[in-house]
């Protein structure tokens, strides 16, 4: 695995409000031996406003980066942000499937894009290229008591023609990765319901209501934490949780972690290098609950022993009772 190198398109959010996603993702990749290189002088992909202007224009903004990545020769670019990913994939697929579209886009560019880059989410690279076994093999710590509701957001797997990854109605990739690192996952029906992040700024009320639904469904599913793979979702659910509480009269206090942060915690990485302190809703309790897997094994063994003891006592009691019964019958 270690030899393989990927281009890593960070995207603007991960330089700003989602810096902890970037930090933790890089740490996890490093732990897994996945080499990543940041394309030199990348620019914003144009998500999300560009596509309201023109399809060709939107594709051109994305394709400028594809051209840069194509020259790097890695073949695959891995993208943490689903919004960027979707835009890059749309541009890539549109340009490889339709020649006239490609020509139109290339007319707007200084250097043409030839179609030699495959954009994949970081989630997809972890699941398909690294593999669950390899992911599991690096685990050194456990997070007992943590129940995670994985929240995929709307465009990570949709529409299936563009995303070409996981199930568009019931995605499981993040569930699988989290389970692989030994975290308990809640079956959760709102994995995909849009949280409205794209309108965070201009339509705050609308977004608060959508966010409210997602948070309350997670809580209902028994989760005490939400895992995300999208900077916009994270920002919306985390940063706006207070806003939601004040407008909707709720009292949510659900930490919203990037899946990479959770994986990083199980790898024994320090909370600092995973950017845990950057979260608005504190995840300190989760960090504090962390124990080593040896400790966990000890705990489990103790619990088992206790259970067995209790069972034996129960049995003894029953047998005694029976004895009493037969005695009474005899008499």
């Amino acid at each position, binding site marked *: 695995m270690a030899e393989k190198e990927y281009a890593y398109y960070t995207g603007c959010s991960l330089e700003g409000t989602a810096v902890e996603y970037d930090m933790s993702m890089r740490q996890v990749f490093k732990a897994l031996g996945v080499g990543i290189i940041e394309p030199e002088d990348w620019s914003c992909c144009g998500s999300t406003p560009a596509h309201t202007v023109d399809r060709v224009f939107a594709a051109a903004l994305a394709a400028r980066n594809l051209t840069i990545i194509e020259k790097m020769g890695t073949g695959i670019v891995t993208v943490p942000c689903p919004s960027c990913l979707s835009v890059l994939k749309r541009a890539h697929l549109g340009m490889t499937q339709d020649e006239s579209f490609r020509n139109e886009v290339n007319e707007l560019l200084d250097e043409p894009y030839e179609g030699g880059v495959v954009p994949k989410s970081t989630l997809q690279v972890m699941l398909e290229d690294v593999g669950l076994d390899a992911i599991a093999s690096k685990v050194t710590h456990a997070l007992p008591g943590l129940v995670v509701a994985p929240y995929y957001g709307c465009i990570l797997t949709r529409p299936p023609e563009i995303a070409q990854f996981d199930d568009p109605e019931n995605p499981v990739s993040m569930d699988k990765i989290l389970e692989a690192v030994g975290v308990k996952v809640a079956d959760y*029906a709102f994995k995909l319901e849009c949280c409205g992040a794209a309108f965070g700024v201009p339509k705050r009320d609308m977004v608060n209501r959508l966010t409210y639904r997602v948070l309350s*469904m997670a809580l209902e599913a028994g989760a005490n934490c939400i895992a995300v793979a999208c900077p916009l979702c994270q920002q919306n659910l985390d940063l706006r949780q207070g806003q939601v509480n004040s407008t909707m009269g709720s009292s949510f206090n659900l930490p919203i972690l990037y899946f990479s942060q959770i994986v990083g915690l199980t790898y024994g990485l320090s909370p600092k290098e995973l950017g845990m302190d950057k979260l608005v809703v504190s995840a300190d309790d989760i960090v504090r609950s962390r124990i080593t897997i040896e400790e966990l094994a000890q705990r489990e063994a103790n619990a088992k022993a206790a259970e067995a003891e209790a069972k034996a006592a129960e049995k003894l009691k029953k047998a005694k009772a029976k004895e009493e019964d037969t005695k009474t019958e005899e008499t």
Partner: protein
Amino acid sequence: MRVGVFICHCGSNIAGTVDVARAAAELRKVPGVAFATNYMYTCSEPGQDEIKQAIKRENLDRIVVAACSPRMHELTFRRTIEKAGLNRYFLEMANIREHISWVGLDKEANTIKAIETIKMAVAKVMQNKPLYSSSFKINKRVLVIGGGVAGMQAALDCGDGGLEVVLVEKSPSVGGMMARLDKTFPTIDCSICILGPKMVDVAQHDKIKLYAYSEIEDIKGYVGNYEVKIRKKATYVDWTKCTGCGLCMEKCPSKNSYDYFNFGVAPTKAINIPFPQAIPKKAKIDPDFCRQFTKGKCGVCAKICPTGAINYEMQDEIVTEEVGAIVVASGYGLIDMDKFPEYGGGRYPDVITGIQYERLLNASGPTEGHIVRPSDHTEPKTVVFVSCAGSRDKSLGIPYCSNFCCMYIAKQAILTKDHIPDSQSYVFYMDIRSPGKGYDEFTRRAQEDYGAKYVRGRVSRIYPKGKKLVVVGADTLLGTQVEVEADLVVLATAVTAAPGAAQLAEKLHISYDTFGFYVESHPKLRPVETNTSGVFLAGAAQGPKDIPASVGQGSAAAAKVLALFSKDMLESDPAVAKVNENTCVGCLKCKLTCPFGAIQEKELRGGKIVASVIETVCAGCGVCTSTCPCGAIQLSHFTDNQLLAEVNAICQK
């Protein structure tokens, strides 16, 4: 050779855009044409008389009729010339209506095209040879595939008509889907109560031989003479000894077998009689669940059986039956729940299918007619019905309507209210399709008298919330998104072709559409015939249909069989392939490609090997002719020379 050419005006249909007089004049100049004329309506009685008279008067020996499509009137004119003493294959038609006058705007161009098209027909007819049918004996037994209501009807009608019937049913009992239904629309009478007597009739009819739990292995032969191999699947119970007492089922320790009859609503025993009214009422072991098979030890049923009918060593058995005609009534299937991830894809136990709900409603079903939620066995108060779950859904490759769901949903909504008076039903629908007799009134009744709330719109998703299922849909009439918190959701899952439909079609040499439904010979005028003579269709194997339509088709297919068998001999179509034994080199490539197995190897005196056509099996496709390198096998009426004559008539460099 004296060819007569008759050019039809078809009123103004042809004459309006083709100069028919000029065409006739041009044709008169063609070598071989002895007579050419144009006539107002050639297919009319006087028109046909004109042809007959001209044959006599002008001493014509070949006829070309330039008129409409041969698919329309070829048979008419063949009879006409036959009456005038010519062999019926001395006729060619030039299609100057559908292919010319109706589709070309320019009269000049049309006229030239018509003249050339008629010349092609003349060139071909001069190559035509007289062909004669031969006759052969019919085996007056009929095979019915499928023991659902359509197949049983066909079997009973054929049997009552005096024919011997072989009825093959894939599952352990006849009855099909109808036997699983609780009530039937629009009369709400009990399904098994009206079907049961028919099932008994099938079992007791002295003309009907029933093979239950059997499948078609192979079919050889042709109309009048089919040889059918039937696989009697191993039941591990000797049915000649089994009395159907049910003791084995009672004592069987494997309680978690999948219940195919009840569509898995509840588990059954590994040895079971599928339902109380089963015909034949015999037990059968499911080796996927039986401990004797999975673990290698148990033997409870063998110990308990009063007649010693259990036989764990039983093997499949192949039997051969000879019949003259086949009725295919192999029924339908239902789309899998896993096609609907947005509805849980089968993960939510309280999202069930319509047919599963029938079993919950049914007094002889696993809950004895009590409607309960599979998850916790409580009575649901809010039931949501989702119509078109998969039907009319191009994204799932099912663009068609499943025909009867609208009706059974209305029925189930009514029954729900009957069973649970304080319940409320919601029906999500796109259109209510109820064109049958008394059908629309019935769907109205569900709403007017039983208070079912019909919501026009699709359901986008279903998710669990606590003990409830939240159904999110649209009410397009209100123009809003709607939500229902349901206790139970019933999906009217789309009707598909029966599993294995395509493989059966291949064995029968009948066509099936992209969805696997069998294709009738003509959508309007030959609805139960197939393009393979002697094979007829009945019921939902041809396309989704309800009980009355299936029964009607069963009877119709039986009538077709009886009509076919009313004669002792059948006439073969002479437009089949013929082998020139002098030029045939015996390479037998034709045998390799014949789709019907109509070609045999034959050794001539002197040891020369040649191909030989079984005329009654040959369907006349001509694949052999285009395969044969030496032109020794020629499809009569479409020989190389006949087609070359047409090519040469228009391609002269």
